[in-house]
């Protein structure tokens, strides 16, 4: 009995010290992590609205939440509106379809009529040299000028990356989901 108490106290003490160390590290890196994430996101947001000078992005968490609730598009993570000065230039939809090595975090930019202006990948974990080509502009360019009525099927409308069908399909699915989400939220 005495032993158990002694062991318990030792263990608790060590855990407490470890927790303290972690709290300090967390506090020290918290802001930097948030800043990095935001920067990465913003970079992708700018890519999907090419030609818009000094775009302003406004998150529409209400729409993203509504979409999630209806379970129509489970992979949607963010919805935002893009403005150039006062005028609205389009809507961006951030979506995370499942690829080969995990989720592909990507953004689709659409103009006010729902035509895709650009697609960019924020982060992904696809096989380097193979699936990673699905995150490169050369492949993503193919998704330009689509609208909610067009199909984005691999090997029909879009040339897949050879050897990386799964990654290619995931990106196409992401774009499709974004187009559908646009239709759902149009005019809101």
């Amino acid at each position, binding site marked *: 009995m005495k032993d158990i108490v*002694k*062991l318990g106290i*030792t*263990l608790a003490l*060590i*855990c407490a010290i*470890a927790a303290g*160390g*972690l709290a300090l*590290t*967390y506090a020290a*890196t918290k802001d*930097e*992590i948030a800043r*990095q*994430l935001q920067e*990465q996101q913003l970079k992708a947001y700018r890519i999907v609205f090419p030609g818009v000078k000094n775009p302003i992005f406004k998150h529409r968490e209400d729409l993203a939440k509504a979409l999630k609730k209806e379970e129509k598009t489970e992979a949607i993570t963010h919805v935002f509106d893009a403005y150039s000065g006062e005028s609205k230039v389009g809507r961006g939809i951030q979506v995370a379809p499942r690829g080969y*090595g*995990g989720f592909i975090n990507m953004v689709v930019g659409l103009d006010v009529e729902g035509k895709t202006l650009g697609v960019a990948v924020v*982060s*992904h*974990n696809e*096989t*380097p*040299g*193979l699936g990673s080509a699905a995150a490169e502009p050369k492949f993503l360019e193919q998704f330009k000028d689509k609208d909610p009525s067009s199909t984005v099927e691999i090997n029909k409308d879009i040339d897949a990356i050879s*050897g990386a069908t799964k990654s290619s399909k995931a990106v196409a699915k992401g774009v499709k989901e974004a187009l559908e989400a646009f239709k759902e939220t149009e005019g809101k």
Partner: protein
Amino acid sequence: MLATLWRDFKNGIIPENPLLRLMIGLCSALAVSTRAESALFMGIAATFVLFFSNIIISAIRKVTADQIRIPIFIVVIASFVTIVDLTMRAYFPVIYDRLGVWVPLIVVNCIILGRAEAFAYRHGILRSAADGMGMGVGYTGLLLIMGIFRETVGSGKMVFFDKTLFDLTRSIGFSPPRIVILFPGAFLTFGFIMALLNKWESRRRSK
């Protein structure tokens, strides 16, 4: 004393290289050695954890009762892994993204728990530090060799911090065998390195 430390340090590089000789921690090594850059950062992360967890575990070994040593090791190791995880996420987000799940998985890397149990729990702080560093260098070294080989042969180019050091696909029209960066390539590369080392060792011994 210095000679002992040096021997402990060297021990991890060839005689007891965690990957080639002890054959532990292979999973992460095979997975992240697709690129030299990822291999280097994974090696640094694991070395950091190994070094500090060895020091702390050695320092508290006298108050660590036998019955609870494993949970204590895990707490110490997990704390250092989380520190590495947060730091990498804050300052090297691109590499963190690429390493993905392998950074948090350092917690369950056998090398670290193995060294805690086999070495740090039984030896002094300085010797444990030397052992941790040596094991880390041995791990990083092999990871780098595999990473450099697999990236060069498997993708035909070498990219470091978004800078392309060379691109054989452009300069000499080399078409890389993709298998080298896929999973089978990891096993093949590792097998060949091991075979070479064994060959070298048996030749040295027979002399």
